[in-house]
């Protein structure tokens, strides 16, 4: 059973990587950098021109443990691009299966659905690393500097975030299958992540209601760990964040797996798989 699942993961990842690069589109690739470029540019202008390097009276550095505002923004945006590139693919699997007419065949196979989705996640995360690295390179032009690299923490933050995205992807696909929407669910989730996980502003500075939402998102802890690993932030307790991220990841994956299985069962019963 385990070896079968591993074969499913490997073959699905391989197919998806081939598909991505065979039908590579420069316009689609460039489009993924528009939001981070706009944010980096806007942050640079706000910091250097509009407010002439003033920061928060409470002390931006005191809240974050680092005073590099533009480095803070760059890491947030690189993280967002990683999340976007991965979630964009994983969150739309069922939509594309339905659109290309392969959804019934896919669900007729005896493979584990989780293994199938893991394969897609693996391919998406691999591809996302290119976008992720590209934003750091772009960030150099805006003043990004690595203060102190903590490689194990950096890798942990990437892996655990990918695991959380996998859980979110499962839930998104379950919703897509049920409501037969095209991309609205995935897009709305992206907005939620973009706004509340602290990409452009420390969560501590957000209004209390926004902090509540951000605490429920695994990506909040992922981006905080990533910043800690690159910017030498000492105010973050990595073990606490890793533990919280692990718990949230597990919750999301379990909810996603159960929901997807239930919805598959329901769709089979009502023969609604390929209905738009």
């Amino acid at each position, binding site marked *: 059973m385990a070896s079968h699942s591993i074969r499913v993961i490997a073959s699905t990842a391989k197919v998806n990587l081939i598909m991505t690069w065979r039908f590579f589109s420069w*316009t*689609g690739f460039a*489009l993924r950098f*528009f*939001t981070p*470029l*706009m*944010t980096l*540019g*806007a*942050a640079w*202008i*706000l910091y250097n*021109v*509009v*407010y002439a390097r*003033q*920061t*928060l*009276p409470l002390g*931006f550095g005191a809240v974050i443990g680092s005073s590099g*505002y533009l480095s803070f923004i760059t890491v947030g945006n690189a993280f967002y691009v990683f999340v976007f590139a991965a979630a964009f693919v994983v969150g739309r699997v069922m939509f594309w299966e339905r659109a290309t007419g392969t959804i019934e065949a896919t669900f007729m196979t005896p493979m584990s659905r989780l293994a199938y989705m893991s394969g897609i996640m693996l391919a998406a995360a691999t591809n996302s690393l290119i976008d992720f690295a590209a934003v750091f390179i772009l960030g150099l032009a805006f003043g990004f500097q690595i203060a102190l690299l903590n490689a194990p923490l950096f890798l942990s933050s990437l892996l655990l975030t990918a695991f959380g995205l996998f859980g979110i992807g499962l839930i998104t696909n379950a919703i897509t299958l049920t*409501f037969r*929407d*095209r991309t*609205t669910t995935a*897009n*709305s989730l992206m*907005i*939620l992540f*973009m*706004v509340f996980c602290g*990409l*452009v*502003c*420390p969560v501590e*500075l*957000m209004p209390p209601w*926004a902090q509540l939402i951000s605490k429920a998102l695994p990506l909040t802890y992922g981006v905080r760990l990533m910043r800690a690993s690159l910017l030498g932030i000492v105010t973050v307790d990595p073990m606490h964040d890793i533990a919280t991220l692990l718990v949230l990841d597990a919750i999301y994956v379990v909810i996603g797996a159960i929901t997807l299985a239930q919805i598959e069962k329901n769709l089979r019963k009502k023969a609604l798989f390929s209905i738009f």
Partner: protein
Amino acid sequence: MFTRVVFAEAVKSLKVYFFSSRTLFWALALPLGNGLYLYFLYLPFATKSVDLQFGATTYTIDLVGFTIIGQLLYSFFTMMLLAGASFDAERWQGTLEVLLLSPASRVAILLGGALANAVNYVWMLVALVLSWVAFIHVSIFVTDPLALCGSLLLSYLAMMALGMCLETVDVYSRRGSIFTAWLQEPVMFLSGQIFPLQSLPVSLLPLSYLLPLTFGLMAVRLTLLGGASIYDVRMPLATLASMTLIFFILASLLVNYAERRAKTKATLTQF
């Protein structure tokens, strides 16, 4: 005939899209999310107001108001961009050829689509009123209601006319929706939605001045939050009126060109 086509196209689009997940996302979730995102971008800074320079005067404007007005007009712009997607939908459904075989005025079809999207924008307006209530400390400073009404009306008309021009891309090309997606962030950046226009590098200003959103933001922010009179904002208002006329004429020329090209090349229904 022209009015009937406009009305029929608008009613059709409203019936299909008014309460769809697509409209709720574009007219509600995205503007609210973007608005909060931009507001949060300002949070690490000490000052909670923005200095807006216009001519020789500097207006100090409340940050929340600055962000909300930015989002109010930008959302209308995205709704106009989205109007072109109705041609994409016609293509998907296989009805685009039939639509363009009819003797209906193409400009009327464009106008109907743009009007429907303007009505779909009501979701954003409701959200705006609610957020205005939530952020009760937004300091509104209106000295000339006529200037405010004129600014809003001319901004919407100019953006609707530009929207009609952009709709023609969807008739001509199958990549219309990609083109729409490409426009969003550059327009946000160049129009002064995120930060005051005087902070933008001078080399980029000519691009900003091509956008009706730039002048709309200028006029509405100054009249609603800065207490400017109609005399103060006469320049942006005149520019918006000129843009409305120019874009409307351009749209009628472009739609004929796009249709002719697509028919010659037989690409109307190709994906």
